[in-house]
């Protein structure tokens, strides 16, 4: 059976949509990280605006609520001088029964240039990218359990900033991996950038054996998973996604898989601790660690704006 060309790339191999980290060549990732560095300096200026997306309309289509991510994209778009329109889909036409594609068609008729899409179903941004007008770019802000590519890029930027060379690192991802789009995108990015050892740590109900096929080592013991790690990525325990019977309690999870100072002591002495946020203190991470010297959780947020500016401006400049 034939499979289609990667819908994210145009004929010249340039990025026109960002839907997933999968299938993106290493050069696309590293160039994006380099470009993000330029935008980081913009955020330090008095005038935090550049005119790259002036006159362009960026529509935030959030089918799933998320004030944090939506705000970061909004800030990034505005710093690029774009016009930003936020669509509260849950309370709008889709709730009245309008189909997803009708919503897209209507928005395209309003001359949208870019859709930032967050949706509860894996694959939804692909459908949107397939059916929107040719000049419209789609950026996936998170689809179901499948991917969260901008988060992965900012995670990679953070790692590169603090650790430099990817090819010597041991990275541990801990927590609710089976439901995590962040974990999937991080794993693809880490493998593409050449990280030799990636560990997926958690109880069997949250860390499926199939993950091995993505190139990770599955650990069901926290001590074994954290030992010697250079980077620890803690994932939020997502209560709303668990359909029950996966964990008995947050307390038991914290006892065995929460990141506390003594667990952290098993990692490299200069290990960094990351988290996509928002953090659940006392559930997956101890306050002492979240606020401690190893934590780079706040820099992640700053890098997030620069990375999203890089993604939007790179994509906006490439023709379908």
């Amino acid at each position: 059976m034939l499979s289609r060309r990667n819908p994210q790339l145009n004929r010249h191999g340039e990025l026109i949509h960002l839907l997933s980290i999968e299938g993106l060549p290493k050069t696309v990732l590293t160039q994006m990280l380099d470009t993000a560095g330029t935008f980081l300096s913009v955020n330090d200026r008095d005038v935090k605006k550049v005119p790259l997306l002036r006159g362009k309309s960026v529509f935030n289509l959030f089918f799933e609520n998320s004030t944090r991510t939506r705000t970061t994209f909004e800030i990034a778009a505005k710093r690029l001088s774009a016009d930003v329109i936020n669509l509260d889909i849950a309370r709008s036409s889709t709730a009245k029964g309008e189909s997803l594609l009708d919503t897209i068609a209507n928005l395209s008729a309003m001359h949208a240039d870019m859709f930032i899409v967050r949706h509860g179903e894996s694959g939804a941004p692909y459908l949107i990218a397939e059916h929107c007008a040719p000049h419209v770019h789609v950026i996936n802000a998170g689809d179901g359990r499948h991917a969260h590519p901008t988060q992965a890029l900012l995670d990679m930027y953070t790692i590169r900033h603090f650790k430099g060379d990817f090819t010597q690192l041991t990275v541990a991802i801990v927590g609710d991996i089976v439901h995590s789009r962040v974990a999937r995108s991080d794993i693809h990015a880490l493998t593409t950038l050449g990280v030799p050892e990636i560990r997926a740590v958690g109880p069997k109900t949250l860390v499926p054996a199939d993950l091995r096929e993505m190139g990770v080592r599955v650990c069901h013991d926290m001590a074994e998973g954290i030992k010697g790690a250079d980077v620890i990525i803690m994932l939020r325990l997502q209560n709303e996604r668990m359909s029950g019977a996966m964990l008995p309690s947050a307390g038991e999870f914290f006892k065995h898989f929460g990141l506390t100072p003594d667990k952290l002591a098993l990692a490299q002495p200069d290990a960094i601790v990351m988290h996509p946020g928002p953090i659940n203190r006392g559930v997956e991470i101890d306050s002492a660690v979240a606020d401690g010297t190893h934590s780079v959780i706040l820099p992640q947020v700053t890098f997030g704006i620069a990375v999203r500016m890089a993604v939007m401006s790179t994509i906006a400049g490439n023709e379908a």
Partner: protein
Amino acid sequence: MKLLIKGGRLIDPASGLDRIGDLAIAGDRVIALGAVSPDFTPERTIDAAGLVVAPGLVDLAARLREPGHEHEGMLESELAAAAAGGVTSLVCPPDTDPPLDEPGLVEMLKFRARKLSRCRLFPLGALTRGLAGETLTEMAELTEAGCVGFSQADTPIVNTLTLQRALQYAATYGYSVWLRPQDPWLGGGVAASGAVATRLGLSGVPVAAETIALGTIFELVRSTGARVHLARLSSAAGVELLRRAKAEGLPVTADVSINSLHLTDIDVGFFNAAMRLTPPLRQQRDRDALQAALAEGTIDALVSDHMPVSSDEKTLPFGEATPGATGLELLLGLALAWGEQRQLTLAQTLARITSDPVRVLGPSIGSLGSSAGRLIEGGVADVCLFDPAARWAVRADALVSQGKHTPFAFEISGFELAGRVQTTLVAGRVAFERSRR
């Protein structure tokens, strides 16, 4: 009408007949097969040189979505699609709207189908009222109205006690119960568990959903003696359990869909909703096991699992799309493709879509069972003439069905099917004829 089909390759899989010859039809019966007396004066002669003359295909699973979609003219278009696919008898599941749990609904459906004279329709009745899995339907009444068996379609009975009782009741009369081996709790995902579903972040259906259900069903067959037909096997592990059950002598038969026979989870690609199917597409090993099992006869029949879905139902994110694909017009070509891959003879290949499905139906189709799915003198004149070498691309405009969505669409698969139906006869009358160029 007296019809002469001249010079075709006559194949009757059940008897092993495979020779060039003539076929004479009078009224609704085959009166001569092979050599036809020169006294026979046909009103019409069909030149079948280069064509295969086979029994009309028997498809054990095709949804016509009527009752429920009358306003779309579904029955008309889908029975026309059946004829275009060379299918002369088809079994439809009871999950219509409303479900086929009342004799009146079944009679109406049969009556409407008979008037269209395109294809014989054998409905399955609902096993429980409303398919709700609680109270039994009047199986004897439904059988009198024309049902050939009883089924829950895709809504498995949750309560094992109820399932046991339903099987016991059906066994009283010797009725056949058709069951999808799918555990109600484990079967809720949208894609087969495995590396692809994990990578794509799609909720998975583990193989255990099928094997646990098969285990339950076989246990109940042992204790009730009911005859069960297993609808849509999908896994290698399931095939193995079936093999052992048959070796033990349990009265079970099984089918597999054209989709599971040819495709794997990798074909989902970039969340292509045409691949949103139930059962979900599994891995390479499963496909190989299904192909082998169909070849050796462990799986008795190949079905189209036809489900005409509209574009509105398919252009949705993968998990929200309605499962199903069009299939009636692809059954022949995909059967031939499978047969060629397994290096079977044409007769062996065609058996799985003609005589073997009839064997599964057994006494439920009455006297028709002696000649449906067969070409024999004195038997019903249900015939499919096809060109085994003709290639065609599966495109929307080439399909008669209102369902245009299929994983085998040319723009997805990129290959053409070999095997095109030229003429279909039901009870001696032309139900479909392709214009010759």
